[in-house]
């Protein structure tokens, strides 16, 4: 059973919008990232996506790149991830998924990473550069430990690949709203609707959340009208950079309330 799915389904049944919020572990420091993440959960984020800083984040735009570079420059190490995660999961009930590029996980050891993630109260993993085709080790251990595993579904994915991503994802399917990398965009692509309907058409009942480029309350509301949640990252980092936890929580609650 996936707690993430329970949360998303529960909001859906109450006709409430779901907000998935991204923040990098260790940004700008470990303590500050814990405080920021806890504040995000307390001010309206329904599912937290905790990013692992990585030297070569090819799926991320400049805002996230700069934040994760700063975390690394400030000394963040992979072994710090699990205590950081545990401090967050000890403080809030919100499901926390770790978002990591594959190489750090491979070096740590896929099984060891999964076990430490579980022990720290993590709900599962979002893997932006791991497609299901290359994920044999991760599929196996995530089944054994009942961890969420979130694969991507994109506007260029064939229906067959959408169906496969959906059937192998647990927690939610990450529907990429537009072709591109993370970063706020003015207009949300219409393509997002097609990806979501493609996933739903495959018969999957795994929730679908839409991400990449979401930065306004209107977009959050719009996405929630056809999908099971909206994923926001760069905007929150910008808010934090501008005005610390206060502006971050303000940003979260305004997106969540649709204002």
């Amino acid at each position, binding site marked *: 059973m996936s707690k993430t799915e329970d949360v998303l389904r529960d909001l859906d049944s109450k006709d409430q919008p779901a907000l998935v919020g991204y923040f990098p572990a260790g940004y700008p420091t470990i303590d500050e990232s814990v405080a920021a993440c806890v504040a995000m959960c307390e001010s309206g984020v329904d599912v937290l996506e905790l990013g692992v800083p*990585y*030297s*070569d*984040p*090819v*799926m991320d*735009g*400049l805002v996230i*790149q700069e934040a994760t*570079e700063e975390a*690394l420059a400030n000394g963040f*190490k*992979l*072994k710090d991830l699990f205590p950081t995660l545990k401090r967050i999961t000890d403080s809030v009930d919100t499901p926390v998924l770790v978002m990591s590029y*594959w*190489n*750090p*996980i*491979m*070096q*740590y050891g896929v099984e060891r990473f999964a076990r430490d993630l579980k022990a720290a109260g993590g709900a599962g993993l979002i893997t*932006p*550069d*791991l*497609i299901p*085709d*290359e994920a044999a080790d991760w599929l196996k251990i995530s089944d054994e430990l009942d961890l969420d595993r979130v*694969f*991507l*579904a*994109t506007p*260029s*994915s*064939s229906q067959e*690949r959408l169906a496969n*991503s959906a059937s192998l994802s647990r927690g939610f399917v990450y529907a*990429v709203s537009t*072709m*591109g*990398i993370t970063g706020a965009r003015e207009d949300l692509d219409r393509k997002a609707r097609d990806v979501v309907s493609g996933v739903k058409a495959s018969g999957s009942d795994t929730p679908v959340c839409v991400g990449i480029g979401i930065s306004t309350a209107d977009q959050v509301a719009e996405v929630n009208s056809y999908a099971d949640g909206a994923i926001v990252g760069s905007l929150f980092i910008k808010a934090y950079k501008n005005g610390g936890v206060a502006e971050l929580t303000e940003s979260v609650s305004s997106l969540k309330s649709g204002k």
Partner: protein
Amino acid sequence: MNNPTNLRAQDGPYFGEYGGRFVPESLIAALDELDATYQQAKADPLFAAELAELNHSYVGRPSIITEVPKFAALAGDIRVFLKREDLNHTGSHKINNVIGQALLAKRMGKKRIIAETGAGQHGVASATAAALFGLDCVVYMGEVDTQRQALNVARMRLLGAEVIPVTTGSRTLKDAINEALRDWVTNVDHTHYLLGTVAGPHPFPTIVRDFHSIIGIESRAQMLNDYGFLPDVLAACVGGGSNAIGLFHAFLDDPSVRLWGFEAAGEGINTPRHAATLSMGKVGVLHGAKSYMLQDEDGQTVESHSISAGLDYPGVGPEHAWLKDINRAEYFGITDDQAMQALKALSQTEGIIPAIETAHALAGVIEHGKTLPAGSTILLNLSGRGDKDMETVGKYFGFLGA
């Protein structure tokens, strides 16, 4: 090796445990399209004819082989032959792959190509093909490299390409590839990523190798026809590995032929400042493929260092990782200074100025040639000419100024 081998038949996605497609789902459709287009092209005699014609009348193939006895004397009692990829149009082997992929881009109806470049040779070749085929071209180049290869930046701009200096990370080739991948994820509908080496996700390592394999195919025939024997050793420098695999591939199933790849050892293989990925790296995933790479215990990529921009890369193509593991090829490190001395040596003994990248292979031949029995023969891939490096060389040896 007693058993007849068929190493040449090995194509991606995997070379042993290496290779694959560790990329965002957003790129899978484009990689599938590229693969399908390439498979069709491979089976189409018209494609082969068009490529052969361009290789002949535009690139200037076949490239010649030059024996260099005075240089060889520096490496003991051996004979050294150079496969002259420096004489290709644009001055390096890079054009072989670029012409092939530009034809594939045309087949896919893509009007825009993007490329990464380190030394600028792949960027220049890409800008050249874009001019020839009427394509838009954007080249990503680390800011450090735009400075040390400024002449090539000017060449690319003259050819009509847009050169974007990359200011993230180490500001070298690795970061240029990251930026090109980000562009590709965003513009994949109308853009082809013309990757310049045998790294990256499948099908790039196979496609790039195949377009460069003409180096070895020609060489093998030239050695047999003109000299009547196969060389005992092949030598090439290894950055991502394209010129090396291009030379090696036709000989993979000739067990008598040893394969030597020379990586950049920078300030020394036991210092933190080198780019000797196969010698010192660990297995990981970088830029879409599983292979050896320079990384710390957390899997963070470690910055590489080399005096040569084209070898200054912390990854390497997956086929090389496999050839190393099965002991078919051997890889060694060559320091900045060894390379610069060899560059000067070839210039002054034979009147041929090589690129600094290529000079690593020349230095490798000087060092390791001495271990060979008298009369041994080495065929070295002279992957590029040194014109682009004159500023670095001038500073290094104090040749600039009055």
